C-alpha cells in the first residue's frame, strides 16, 4: 500500500511504526470485536445478580445484608486478575467447556470463563450502582405504594425500580466502558481480545511498541466518545427530571 513507505526507516521501537498493519490488521479488528463482546456480555450478565445483591443489601435481615456485603467486599477488594485466574483454573478446571468456536475466533472454552469472571466482578460494582439508584428514589414513593395496599415486592417492582433503573442507566453504560478496559486482563489467559492481538503482533513482528500504541488509540477511540455521549444523555435526563 502507498503508506507502507511511511514506515520504512522507522525503528522497531518507534511509537508509530504501523508497518505491520497490512498483514496484521485482522488481529486488531477481531480483537476489538472480542473486547466489545466481552464487555457487553459480561455487564449484561451482571445486571440480574447485581439487582439481587442490591436488594439483599437493602434487606431488613442482617444475615441477608451480610451475605451480599461479603460478596461485594470480596470482589471489590481483590484484583480482577486474581479473580480471573482463580475462576479460570479453579471453577473451570472442574467444569469442562467444549472447544467450540463462535464467529470463528471466539473460543468458548476461554470466552466463557472470562465472561463469568468479569460478570461476577462487575456484579459487585453494579450492585452498588443499583443500591445508590434505589436509595435515590424518594422514600415517599414506597410509602405511597404501601399505603395503597401494595406489597413491598410490588412497590419495589412497579414503582421504585422503574425510577431507579432510569437513574442508573448512565452509570451502567459507564460500567461497560470500564469493562472494555478491564477486559484487557483476559489477554493473560489467551482470550483473543484487543490486548491479546497487540501482544501477538508485537511478538511475531518484533515491532515492540507500536502495536500497543495502536491498541491504546483504539481503546481511546471507543471509550472517549462513548463516555462523552453518556455525559450528554445524563445532562438531558437531568433536564427532563425537573418538575
Amino acid at each position, binding site marked *: 500500500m502507498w503508506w507502507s513507505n511511511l514506515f520504512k526507516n522507522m525503528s522497531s521501537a518507534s511509537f508509530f511504526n504501523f508497518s505491520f498493519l497490512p498483514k496484521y490488521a485482522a488481529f486488531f479488528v477481531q480483537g476489538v470485536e472480542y473486547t466489545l463482546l466481552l464487555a457487553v456480555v459480561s455487564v449484561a450478565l451482571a445486571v440480574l445478580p447485581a439487582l439481587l445483591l442490591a436488594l439483599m443489601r437493602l434487606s431488613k435481615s442482617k444475615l441477608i445484608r451480610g451475605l451480599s456485603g461479603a460478596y461485594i467486599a470480596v470482589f471489590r477488594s481483590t484484583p480482577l486478575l486474581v479473580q480471573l485466574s482463580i475462576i479460570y483454573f479453579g471453577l473451570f478446571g472442574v467444569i469442562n467447556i467444549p472447544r467450540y468456536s463462535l464467529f470463528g475466533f471466539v473460543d468458548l472454552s476461554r470466552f466463557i470463563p472470562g465472561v463469568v469472571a468479569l460478570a461476577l466482578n462487575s456484579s459487585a460494582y453494579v450492585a452498588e450502582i443499583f443500591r445508590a439508584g434505589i436509595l435515590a428514589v424518594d422514600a415517599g414513593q414506597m*410509602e*405511597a405504594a*404501601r*399505603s*395503597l*395496599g*401494595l406489597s413491598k415486592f*410490588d412497590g419495589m417492582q*412497579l414503582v421504585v425500580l422503574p*425510577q431507579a433503573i432510569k437513574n442508573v442507566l448512565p452509570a451502567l453504560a459507564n460500567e461497560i466502558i470500564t469493562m472494555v478496559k478491564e477486559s484487557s486482563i483476559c489477554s493473560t489467559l489467551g482470550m483473543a481480545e484487543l490486548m491479546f492481538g497487540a501482544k501477538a503482533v508485537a511478538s511475531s513482528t518484533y515491532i515492540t511498541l507500536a502495536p500497543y500504541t495502536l491498541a491504546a488509540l483504539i481503546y481511546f477511540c471507543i471509550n472517549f466518545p462513548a463516555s462523552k455521549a453518556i455525559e450528554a444523555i445524563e445532562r438531558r435526563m437531568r433536564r427532563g427530571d425537573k418538575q
Partner: protein
Amino acid sequence: MATSNEIIRVEHVCKTFDGGIKALDDCSLTIGQGEVVSIIGPSGSGKSTMLRCLNLLEVPTSGKVIVDGVDITADKVDLDKHRRKMGMVFQHFNLFPNMTVKRNITLAPVRLKLKSRAEAEADAMRLLDRIGLADKADAYPSMLSGGQKQRIAIVRALAMQPEVMLFDEPTSALDPEMVGEVLDVMKELALAGMTMVVVTHEMGFAREVGDRVIFMDSGKIVEVNTPSELFDHPQHERTRLFLSKIL
C-alpha cells in the same frame, strides 16, 4: 356526625425512633365511623407520627392500633389488606412520576385484582371528572400544579374505596392560592360521610369541617374536644399558648 360505632382505636401507643427520640408517648384515641378528626399541634409534636401509626407506615414501639376490631400491630396480620381500607394523602403528594395520572389511579386496584382494568379506568375517569381533572388523565404528574397533584393523590387513594382517609398535612406544600381547591375536595369528602383523620395547620378547616380536634404537644395527646370547645375554650395551658400563637 360522630357516632359510637368506632372504626379505629389506638391504645397506649408509644413510638421511639432509632436515635432515641420519643415521638409518641402513651397516646390513646378512638375514631368513629364517619367522623372527621383533625390533629393539630406545633411541629415536632408527633402529629404525623400518630397518623402514620394508624396504617403502620410507622410501627409503634409499644401499644395497640385496632382497626375494625383487629389489632394490626399483632404479628401475622395481613397489613397490606388493612392498608387497602385506609387511604393516605401525603404532604408531598407522592404521585408516581413515571406513570400517567390514570395509571397512578388504576395501578393498585388493578394489581390487587379488585377491579378489571376497564372498570378501574372507568372509575378513575369518574373520579377525575368529579374533581374537574378528567382532561389530565393522560398527563404526567410533572405537568401538573401542586393543587392538581394533591387532588389527584386524593383520588388515587379513593380509587381503593377505603373506609378511612388519612391526610398528612395535605396543604402544607402548596402555594397559598392552591390550598382552597384541595380543601374543597376534602370538604366534599367529609360531607359524603367519609371517615377522615387530618393532620393540618388549616385551623379554618379543622373548625368548620371537623367533628373533633386533637391537640398534641411533645408526643402527647393534650386535649381532645369539639372544634368550638377546643378553639374557644381550651382547657389546657399548652393548648391556649399554641392557639394564641397561630390564631
